[in-house]
Structure formats: structure tokens, C-alpha cells
């Protein structure tokens, strides 16, 4: 606990600028495709000094510089993958909002499928094990009482 009180202020003292408004920067895009690529990249790359924002939404100075870098690289002919790789080499997988598919993220990407299979297995076994169940026997009086309780006109 004491160490935390020591470390956190140190980290916090790294100047993190994280206001919420994106600076409006105007760019001249050489083509519509480049504009699309730019918008997609700045949406999928993470602002490193912010509390969970992408490059597009951040006003932080580092984010501005990273956006400028993306723009520059696109105009020089780099592909989207090149630019993402460039950022990942320097900042790690953290900088991508689309997590990579590797052994450490196997569970992440295939988890939903696993959930689906497990759910299917549970349902199938539930239906199979229903042999013990029977139809409820409801006599006239109980039915009348049920109707008046529920006041339901269905069926």
C-alpha cells in the first residue's frame, strides 16, 4: 500500500493531457480512399496518454502528433497495416483497439464460440434429461382459480 502511494504520484506526474475534446484538424486528402483509411486508423489506434480514447477523439498533444504521423505516412504511400505495425513496434499491442490474434488472445477471440458450444451442450443435455418430467395435471377448480388470478384471455 505504501509503495502504491509512492508510485502512483510518480506516474501521475508524467504529464498526461486528457481533455475530452478532439481538436479539429483540417487535412487535404489526396484521395477519398486515403481519407477513409485515415479516419479508420485514427479510430482504431489508441491515445496513450488518455483514459481510454482513440486518436480521433483525443486532444492530447501526443495524439495530435500521432495523427500527423498517420497522415504523413498515408500520403507517402504506406498501407494501413504498415502504419499499425509502425505504432505496435514502438508502443506494443496496447496501441491497437483491435486486439491481435495470437496465443495470448486465443481465449479472447474464440471465447464467444466456446460459450456457444457450451450453451448448446447444456441445452441438449437438459432436453435429454427431461424423461422424468411430466405434464402438469390441473383440475377444473384449480384452472378456474388460475384464470381468475391471471385474468388471461389467451387460448
Amino acid at each position, binding site marked *: *500500500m505504501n*509503495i*502504491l502511494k*509512492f*508510485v*502512483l504520484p*510518480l*506516474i501521475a*506526474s*508524467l*504529464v*498526461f493531457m486528457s481533455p475530452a475534446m478532439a481538436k479539429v484538424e483540417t487535412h487535404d486528402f489526396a484521395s477519398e480512399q486515403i481519407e477513409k483509411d485515415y479516419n479508420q486508423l485514427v479510430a482504431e489506434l489508441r491515445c*496513450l*496518454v488518455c483514459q481510454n480514447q482513440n486518436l480521433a477523439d483525443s486532444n492530447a*498533444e*501526443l495524439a495530435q*502528433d*500521432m495523427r*500527423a*504521423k498517420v497522415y504523413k505516412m498515408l500520403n507517402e504511400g504506406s498501407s494501413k497495416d504498415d502504419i499499425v505495425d509502425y505504432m505496435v*513496434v*514502438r*508502443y*506494443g499491442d*496496447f496501441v491497437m483497439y483491435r486486439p491481435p490474434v495470437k496465443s495470448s488472445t486465443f481465449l479472447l477471440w474464440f471465447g464467444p464460440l466456446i460459450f456457444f458450444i457450451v450453451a448448446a451442450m*447444456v441445452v441438449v443435455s437438459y432436453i435429454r434429461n427431461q424423461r422424468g418430467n411430466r405434464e402438469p395435471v390441473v383440475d377444473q377448480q384449480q384452472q378456474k382459480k388460475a384464470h381468475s388470478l391471471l385474468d388471461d384471455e389467451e387460448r
Partner: protein
Amino acid sequence: MGRYSILIGFFILIGVFAVVLDRMGKGEYNPRNIPTEFIGKTAPEINVPDLYNESEIVRSKDMLGKVWLFNVWGTWCPECWREHKYLLELQQEGITIIGLNWRDEAAEAKAMLTRLGNPFAKIGFDPNSNVAMDWGVYGAPETFLINAEGIVVEKHAGGLTPAVWQQKFQKHFNSL
């Protein structure tokens, strides 16, 4: 069978969270800290003009054969002002520090060094974060330790203090 698995699964989840909180408490895990990609790798190039002499280019290559610190700072960063004194001490002990003046006004940077003293052998001037990005820098101050072969052996994000030096950097100096 199925009902027990839910209970067990839940307690595993709680266990995981407990481990997370414990690590946070000990300072081993900090969600805001981004580890560096360069430990064990060749130090990135710097390749920008010196703050004091535009015609001189500061290069990592020139530092081969020497052990050196790479310190990223700016006049806008309060912690940089605080660690400055210790950087001067390190320089007195004979440690070479190359500085990177990041996203700053050259005049203000020079004024700060005139006022507080200059611990840096050379200072790269990086107003556009090009060098900062190449080194994976995301805040200031940050300090890297590079060995004589040009490999990054340690990095610290935050102000450099005697305690941090002891814990993180001292051991590398002893073995280098």
C-alpha cells in the same frame, strides 16, 4: 454437476480480481503504465539537431562503446524540473546523459538549463514527437539506459530519484 461449476467459476473470478487488486496494491500492476518494447533491443535512432547547435545532429550511433542515459524532458513538465537536480548529480558522477527536449520552445528550454544547470552531453530538439514516438515515449520525464553495444537495458517512466536509481539502474551499471 452443472450447478457446482457456476459456483466454482464465480470464485475463480473473485480470486482473479483479488490477485489484480493485490498486485495493484504492491505497485506491480498499474493500468496506466505502458511497458516499453525496447528492452533488449537496439536503441532507436535519434537523428535530430542539437538544441544548441542546429548543424550538429544527435545520433545514437555516435554513442556506441559508451554506456549512456537517454532522458526525455520538457519545460512544461513539473516532474522534469524536480528530477533535474539529481540528473546534475549523476552527471557529476561521470554518467553521460543525452537529453531529448520534447515538444518544447527552444528558447524556454535553453532558459531552464541556464537557470538550473545543464546535465546533458547533447540535447536533441524534438518539437513534433518524431523521436519520442520512435522510442515509444508517452509521457515526460522518461529515462532509458543504453549499454555499450547500443542495447536498451532499462527504462523508467517518471522522475529519476536516488531510490529509483538504486532499484532499477544501479545493478546494470555494476555489471556493465
